[in-house]
């Protein structure tokens, strides 16, 4: 049995997935040539791709790669910010960042298309799109590896561009694009990454602002619903790696044109979204019917420790229309801030308003029970609340409220323990006439 037959029976060599039909025939045609050790400098589709995109080859000391440049006027895209970026918004986006961050001319939008989403050393960013505000519009430049061997050249060009504009702006770039690029630079052992002076990642603000509303915060979703654009037919992004692999193996370059367009759209959406988020964070609209954005801004303010602003916006969001769940969440957050600042009447009022079987409702029961037990020292009143809470827990579980069985168990045992203690105290109080009790029974304080 010869070696090739031996290979044929290996489970490890069974193809992991089917390549595109076109690519398969192309592979069959080229397989015979490649086995003899010949490998063409560039895939068959590279030249046609460059023609279709009117791309040119950029060259530097590490070789060549493709580059496509295109300018989008503001009519198509978004409004470039004038002057410097609003300081209130920046404080929320990137507290303590360097001065350059407030100058939009220093911003460089970046989005990569890669051969996989898992990261690690074997994932290639075969396309890196960057964009910056220019001449009242958005200049988009896309770098592309016609072959994997063009990676070093591409990385060098990218480093040069990044040095010119040191504020990196991405969507999920902090956990995906930039670590991946850092890995690629390290793997060259030669080319230094141009570390950005600041990195604004708009994924988290977007999530805070629109997750509840949209359910998903994929860039294309945000673009459609927040910016009101319609990008028309777009490719399914899960297909991107396979389109590139097919092209490398001699498949057609047409699907790659779609990837270029997709990447352009993503960059324009990112720029538009960045402007929108800055505007919202600077001055959220209070006149609209919808309080969700306001609620999102308050959450961001709270996370950044801007309590006063957070309180103001929570209150504003409660005045607007909120879905029931968000309404409860806003009341609970506002109550927490109020309590922390000693505004007990407000906190009590808010807790009273959300009592129920929801996550916030149960938490409110707990807060109120503690309040009446410790501050007001009215165990009867606390016990009434705890009994009500236990009654809520005895109702059929409301799975849609997002309460896990474990959390419900925890609440139940907490309330049961609490009730036992309260009843014990009330009993002793009845026997002793009562007031000594708090002095001799410190357990409640220790437990909470």
């Amino acid at each position, binding site marked *: *049995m010869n*070696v*090739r037959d*031996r*290979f044929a*029976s*290996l*489970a*490890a*060599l*069974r*193809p*992991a*997935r089917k*390549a595109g039909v076109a690519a398969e025939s192309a*592979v069959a045609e080229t*397989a015979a040539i*490649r*086995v003899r*050790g010949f*490998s063409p400098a560039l895939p068959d589709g590279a030249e046609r791709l460059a023609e279709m995109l009117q791309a040119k080859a950029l060259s530097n000391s590490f070789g060549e790669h493709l580059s496509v440049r295109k300018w989008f006027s503001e009519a198509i895209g978004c409004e470039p910010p004038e002057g410097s970026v609003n300081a209130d918004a920046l404080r929320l986006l990137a507290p303590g960042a360097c001065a350059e961050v407030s100058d939009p001319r220093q911003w460089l939008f970046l989005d990569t298309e890669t*051969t*996989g*989403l*898992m*990261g*690690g*050393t*074997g994932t*290639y960013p075969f396309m890196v799109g960057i964009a910056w505000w220019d001449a009242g519009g958005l200049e988009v430049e896309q770098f592309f590896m016609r*072959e*994997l*061997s063009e990676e070093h050249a591409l990385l060098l060009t990218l480093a040069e561009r990044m040095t010119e504009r040191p504020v990196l702006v991405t969507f999920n770039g902090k956990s995906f694009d930039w670590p991946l690029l*850092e*890995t690629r630079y*390290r*793997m060259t*052992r030669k080319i230094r990454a141009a570390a950005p002076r600041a990195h604004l990642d708009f994924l988290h603000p977007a999530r805070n602002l629109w997750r509840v509303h949209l359910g998903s915060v994929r860039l294309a979703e945000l673009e459609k619903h927040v910016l009101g654009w319609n990008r028309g037919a777009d490719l399914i992004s899960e297909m991107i*790696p*396979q389109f590139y*692999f097919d092209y*490398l*193996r001699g498949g057609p370059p047409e699907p790659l044109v779609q990837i270029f367009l997709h990447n352009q759209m993503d960059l324009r959406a990112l720029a538009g979204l960045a402007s929108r988020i800055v505007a919202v964070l600077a001055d959220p609209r209070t006149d609209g019917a919808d309080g969700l954005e306001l609620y999102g801004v308050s959450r961001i303010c709270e996370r950044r420790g801007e309590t006063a602003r957070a309180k103001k916006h929570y209150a504003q969001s409660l005045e607007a229309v909120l879905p029931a769940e968000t309404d409860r969440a806003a009341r609970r957050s506002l109550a927490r801030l109020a309590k922390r600042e000693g505004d007990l009447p407000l906190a009590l009022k808010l807790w009273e308003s959300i009592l129920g079987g929801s996550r916030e409702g149960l938490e409110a029961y707990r807060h109120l029970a503690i309040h009446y037990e410790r501050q007001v020292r009215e165990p009867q009143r606390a016990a009434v609340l705890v009994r009500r809470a236990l009654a809520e827990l005895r109702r059929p579980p409301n799975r849609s409220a997002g309460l896990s*069985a474990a959390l*419900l*168990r925890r609440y139940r045992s907490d309330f049961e323990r609490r009730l036992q203690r309260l009843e014990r105290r009330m009993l002793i109080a009845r026997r002793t006439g009562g007031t000594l009790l708090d002095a001799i029974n410190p357990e409640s304080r220790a437990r909470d």
Partner: protein
Amino acid sequence: MAASQHGLAGGLTRGLAVRASTTLETVQEALGALVARYRADEVLTVVRHIPAREAQFRAMPTWVRPELAAAYHAKGIEKLYTHQAAAAELAHAGKNFVVVTPTASGKTLCYNLPVLNAVLKDADTRALYLFPTKALAQDQLAELHDLAKRLDDGFGVFTYDGDTPSDARRAIREHGHVILTNPDMLHTGILPHHTKWTRVFENLRYIVLDELHTYRGVFGSHLANVLRRLARIAEFYGSKPQFICCSATIANPGELAAQLIAEPVQVVEENGAPAAEKLFVFYNPPMVNRNLGIRRSYLNEATRVAKELLARKLQTIVFANSRLHTEVLLTYLQQANRPGPGEAEPIRGYRGGYLPGERREIERGLRDGRIRGVVATSALELGIDIGSLDASVMAGYAGSIASTWQRAGRAGRRSGTSCAVMVASSAPLDQFIVQHPDYFFGRSPEHAYVQPDNLEILVNHLKCAAFELPLRPEERFGAVDLPGLCERMSEAGFLHRSGGNWHWVQEAYPADTVSLRSVTSDNFVIIDTTGGTNGDEDGEPEVIGEVDFSSALTTVHPKAIYLHQGQQYHVERLDFEQRKAYVKSVNVDYYTDAIRYTQVRVLEIAEEEQVAGPAVRAHGDALVRSQVVGFKKIKFFTNENIGAGKLELPENEMHTTAFWITLGRKLLAELPYALSDRQNGILGLLYAMASMATLLLMCDARDLGTAVGERPARPGVETEWQEFSATLGDPAQMKESFEPNLYLYDAYPGGIGFSEPLFRVHDILLQRTRELIVGCPCERGCPSCVGPAGEKCEKAKEVALAILERLCA
């Protein structure tokens, strides 16, 4: 280690002696009670008193930095044992080496001393310690933390494994001088992300491989490939680490280490450590039927031994050889040792399928004495800290001498007298060992084998290697034609050649799909669908464990009884596609045993030779088809067969390597026996031969498959199968003149390196097999030599010996 090194000379010795005599007396009393009904010399085939041994010292080397010497001094170590000193010198000279050390001989110093010395000298130095399990790494951490504290935190030491919180990982990569991890983490967590480990790889000077002897067979073959990948990455960052290895006693530690690290290796074998006294007992369950060679059940006898020891307040560990037996023994012992009211369960089980939290809790319980007895698989064999127990009972031979010593070492690990009792099963290997004690107590005959060039394994790691760094045509990766293989992998869509190198072009993350513990990476999860019984609210299905692919078909086939923590589960459904077994908790009085059916076809003969007989010995590639076709129900305690069932499970086809002996037509024709007797003799011979082969190969019986088939006319040609296995074949259909092949095949796709060694030791294998059969006291064959004697197999033993006479002539 520290205490025993110096305490032995001083007052501690007296303390030990007092405890020793009580333990000795207690054990002797227990043994007396056990054999009261039997002839002691027949049951206790060996009672060996291993006296304490004195330490041999050398001075601390002069190159050891004063602060490090002072730290060891403060722990009570001023001098080194001779083997530690030898290791230190080799490490200092920059050599790769392996230290062969028994349990509790101060092996950690062999690597900690040189590594920490280098770290203290140059704070950039980095070392990677690999332990075969996460638990062992955790265990070593304590010792290193202690040293670090004594050295004013002059170095950072961390474990890095699946349990490491992600926010701690960055700090560990930057500040860890010594990183304790396991091969699996290196494979999936470190190498594929090597750019995050730049600092470590640029300064990687030492790699420590502890428990080297565990890296054999499949696991070892995988590790050799992981180390090939590690070497590539280290080279990429400009470092070439030195290897320090520690191994339990085996015959070929140097050869094994050299195969794993692909570099020359020196061996340090002399042992200068002292040892406390130990009583080692071989317990052979008494015969109940001499004709049939049937002995009392060793599981029942092991239970009796453990009960006697536990009754005398000796904290006892019981080792079983399979998960099933762990659970059976646990059931027996828990029934005999019920917890008092309000007390926790004093006897616990411990094996691979349990979840980590459960395991940690059991380890703690053993250390603080709350748990009086534990029934474990090999999972507790290695150095996990469970404190020092008084007695170790082994239900059945562990399969290798090295493992047996390690299991015995779990009792009295640090000090004092301890006892180890090996209760022999009627398996041939066990019987051979209890009747040939010199084989066990003499110089180790055991070899550890690996096959780093197993193509299935190698190709999987080549994918990982390509993911980590593009493959260059001039590179070497094992003994394969790398460019040829890369082209083939490109055709299959895994690689793409660009700029001369081969790049990974798949979205998938190759390391994720390659498990180091098996050739293929399929695991079956076991899902308990009982619900409603153990909680008041959620009856949701719960994952209770996992089994690997190879054992799944035999342990979780439909209608099987699967045991987990002493609880029985009935397998309701096996979802083969989804790799899930759905079980329900039941309470029945039997367990199940699967029946497997196997065919072998020779594909290619690697070597072939005429031998006495006349016969032919050969090894080469083979195709093995096997199928689980049914199961038996075996009643607890009595081991009666109380029923059977048929199963229709998918056939499993595997390309592997095999060793075989073809018995010549002349040899068989000259045997003065009927056809069916000859057939039974052949099956008996194979049964005995397989047992002795596992002994020589240091492998598990599971690692080696057996089959008999007629030699086909030419290799690779489809011939009609002449199957005549005892369970399925019909001897009447057998031709009068046939030339059977007796196959011993590697039970893993691609083979893991057993076939060629078996071919080489053919003569010894036959010699040992003959000793086994001749030495067996049964009359007509029994489970301990040629297999159970039945109505049909009257002459199996006689015929097997007649064939062996001719083969050994």
